[in-house]
């Protein structure tokens, strides 16, 4: 049963730790609980988004630099 990883915050979603760095995770990658899959920027701070279930990232549901609302699905993990 695939699970959606929801954004804990409203803000801007980033899939990379810095513009010149590779993405934290790509589709098809394995993730463990607590693995960072992206950042949400809000109020001048960057907050890590961590996987709450272990599995494989089926797909990302939000793009890099996309504005997101709290509770919006960011990725599907199965």
């Amino acid at each position, binding site marked *: 049963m695939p699970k959606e990883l*929801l*954004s*804990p*915050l*409203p*803000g*801007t979603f980033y899939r990379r730790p810095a513009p010149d760095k590779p993405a934290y995770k790509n589709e098809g990658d394995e993730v463990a609980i607590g693995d960072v899959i992206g950042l949400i*920027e*809000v*109020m*001048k*701070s960057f*907050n890590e988004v961590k996987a709450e279930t272990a599995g494989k990232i089926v797909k990302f549901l939000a793009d890099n630099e996309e*504005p997101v*609302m*709290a*509770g919006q699905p960011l990725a599907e993990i199965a």
Partner: protein
Amino acid sequence: MVKVLKPGLSTTVQDLGRPGYYNIGIPLSGGMDRLATRAANMLVGNDEGAAVLEAVFMGPELEFTADAMVAVTGAELPPKVDGAARETWTSFAVKKGQVLSFEFLKKGARAYIAISGGIDVPVVLGSRSTYTLGALGGFKGRKLEAGDELPVGSGKSVKEGRSIPANLRRVNGNPAELRMVPGLYWHRITETAGKHFFEDIWKVAPEADRIGYRFKGGRPLEFVPRTPPFGAGSDPSNIVDACYPYGSIQVPGGTEPIVLHRDAVSGGGYFMVGTVISADMDLIGQLQPHTPARFVSVDLEGALKAREEREAHLHKVRASLS
């Protein structure tokens, strides 16, 4: 006492603020949404000006070391007691040893968590509010951190399930409409720019905070040419330093309006197109990043009428609980 297990993103102690020191650069502070601050306190039997927790976008996780009555108002940030869902805008009991946590944010931006007895941090210059930029008041002058132990006063006993009717909980329109009185520096922009300013839909920028709410996405303002007066910078948005009212809208470089809020800086060198009326300041505190908003021009009479309506609304909230 309440133990902070997880602090949330930026959770601070706030009351109705610290008036009287803005002239020396210390802003009012206090809950950004004052109606929600008052309502949370009313629900748990506190004075309306008791200190509550203001949680932004994300709730904290709190362990109670004594029984208490709790209410969460403002943003729709659904509370849970030991994992079991509770209603917002409604008082509920938390027993000694239980943990208060929160679901993801559903609506709005700032939730107000009142605990019977109020958060009993020391009063600094007449208020328990946190002014983080000045490291003043609240809990050690800063936002909460894991491990903090918050003192709680002794409360009156009130019933569980006291609730404020849904029609008295204010919600933002879409786009949110912020009423403003055009200001002293309005003449600095062209007539066309003034028209665009009110026509355009602006969006809340992610960097909006308690000091100022920044908006993006409208057309840049065009300035009336001038020779800069002595003391003003060469940028057309610069002025000779002046006082900044709460709610004043500065537009550095003419591109992104910033509405100063409860932790405002008291003066500086940017021109202001106007001032958001006091009746709509609460509403700004509930805007999430990327929320569309537009500015609506009102005159002073309109602003005072809106203030009266706000006061009448507050009376209705009080009456609904008595």
